[in-house]
């Protein structure tokens, strides 16, 4: 993790090897850790496929303004519901909106909510977990009892209640989902900090006179990069599913704004009609996104695993 350590070790090993040109750079096998992690990630084929799919989805959705064949919410009531054609690749809905364009614009909301929730809950959870694990004592006790509370109340109930109270908007959805999601990473970070805080390198830092804040930020957290990275991917996946579920139930994103979840709740009314295929489109979008995110998460787990073979 500490990048400055790796070249120093590399230098000492190369010096023992007799070499006619000592000024040459270190051999390729003594790579900085960042390179090793990257290479291990790239060797995980599914993770790379997942990353490519995610990038393509992100570009298509966030670039929908330029890429989508029709503008957002462009209705054509005379056209009405149409089967797929060369003009409308996925057909149109009852209001004559191009379904492919709607799918891409809805993806903006779904992806943005997923990413924001993952980042926010990870930042909060990491901070709280690190404080609980490192400070110990009553702070730890209070924080852990609070996370216990979150365990016994069903998430979907809190979600519906909070969104009913605060009003549904993308911002409140992000806030509420993050408020629910931080406990998971907080527990993980806490347990990792508990095992690390008595290790020699932390004691060494303390002896040198490093402050608590410095120990946590410079010595503990860099050792948790892997755990945190994996957790971000898990959080993205679960946030996308939870957002679509709440929007489907009617507590989440409200029309005219669209997300994959409320597109599905509209498509649910088409079961048994000739347009029933529209049911599969937003669902597959969610499925593919979550699958890709999970593959990337697996790749990160393997890449950061210190016990993993290189």
């Amino acid at each position, binding site marked *: 993790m500490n990048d400055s350590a790796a070249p120093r070790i590399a230098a000492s090993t190369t010096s023992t090897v007799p070499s006619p040109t000592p000024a040459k750079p270190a051999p390729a096998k003594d790579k900085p850790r960042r390179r090793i992690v990257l290479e291990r990630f790239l060797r995980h084929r599914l993770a790379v496929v997942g990353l490519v799919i995610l990038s393509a989805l992100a570009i298509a959705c966030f670039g929908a303004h330029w890429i989508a064949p029709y503008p957002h919410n462009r209705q054509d009531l005379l056209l009405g519901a149409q089967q797929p054609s060369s003009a409308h690749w996925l057909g149109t809905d009852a209001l004559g909106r191009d379904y492919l364009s709607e799918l891409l614009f809805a993806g903006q909301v779904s992806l943005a909510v997923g990413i924001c929730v993952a980042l926010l809950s990870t930042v909060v959870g990491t901070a709280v977990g690190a404080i609980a694990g490192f400070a110990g004592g009553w702070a730890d006790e209070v924080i852990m009892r609070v996370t216990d509370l979150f365990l016994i*109340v*069903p998430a979907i109930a809190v979600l519906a209640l909070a969104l009913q109270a605060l009003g549904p908007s993308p911002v409140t959805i992000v806030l509420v989902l993050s408020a629910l999601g931080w406990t998971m990473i907080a527990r993980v970070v806490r347990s990792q900090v508990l095992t690390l805080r008595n290790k020699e390198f932390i004691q060494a830092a303390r002896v040198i006179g490093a402050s608590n804040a410095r120990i946590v930020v410079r010595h503990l957290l860099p050792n948790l990069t892997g755990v945190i990275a994996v957790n971000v991917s898990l959080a993205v996946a679960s946030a996308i599913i939870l957002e679509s579920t709440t929007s489907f139930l009617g507590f989440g994103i409200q029309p005219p704004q669209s997300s994959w979840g409320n597109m*599905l709740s509209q498509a649910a009314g088409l079961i048994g009609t000739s347009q029933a295929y529209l049911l599969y489109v937003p669902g597959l979008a969610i499925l593919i996104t979550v699958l890709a995110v999970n593959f990337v998460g697996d790749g990160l787990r393997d890449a950061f695993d210190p016990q993993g073979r290189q």
Partner: protein
Amino acid sequence: MLRYTVRRLAYSLPVLVIASFILFWAVRATFDPLAKLRQSTDPGAVRRQTELLGLDRSAPEQYLLWMKAFVTGDWGTSTRTSGAVMPMIGSALEVTLQLMFWGVLFASVIALGIGIYSAARQYSAGDYVLTGLSYVGIAMPAFWLGLVLIQLLAVWPRQQFGLSEPPLYFVGLHSVGESGINLDYFRHLALPVVTLTIGLVASWSRFTRTSMLEALAGDYVRTARAKGVPRRRILFRHALRNALAPFVTVVALDSAALVGGLVVTEQIYAIPGMGRLFLSSILAGDVFVLIPWMLVVAVAVIVFNLLADVAYALLDPRVALR
């Protein structure tokens, strides 16, 4: 064991009290329990109800009053249906437990089968296919799976073969005028149970595979192999016995989350269980159902957690509960 159980339950009481106070306050702050009466033409109605419920007192006082009534079995009346809350929640809980029973039963059997097969034939074609399927199952939102199953297994065959009614129903637990456990019941139950089972199998089979692989890598398995114990016996007697304890824990913990967490499945199939009761109560702002609902779910979670620990101790004699 008994002492442990009692101690655990006693320990969870303060958590329950704090949780119920927060929930009580949150629900009351969100919804107006008198919303319905405010439209009444009787000017005294709001005042009388305010006094009756003690709504003019402080929050902790109101909470104590409500708690006293709750503990003595007086759970109040629903503002949505005007029925008593306790039987409402009771019948909803019964329905949800039925759904959970079938779902958890099928899912555990299938997940164990898949997990054992995948671990015994690690990296075989079958293992890859099953692992891939479980990835898909985990990534699939439950509500979408439910809708797709309705379209593919109920609506489409009915249209395709011109049936007068769908082969599997997707509304409620019984047809009008039917009751009890019969063919009608299972034709209603099939789709929700399949929806629930697929989701559970996806994650439980991954879990079984991992813990079976861990058990098969143990020294005692190598010893058994060296002694010439048949492969099948090693798999089921030695490895499975050890992989079972963590599996049962996960099953119990995940089941706990289902008591109040089947909102989506119950909503899609219009099953009058806990999830659907919650949804209709929150949409109607039915304070008097919401608060006891949350408490019942919280108690269920605590009980299932306790069951998980006790089951672990029973299956793994190395674990002593104190």
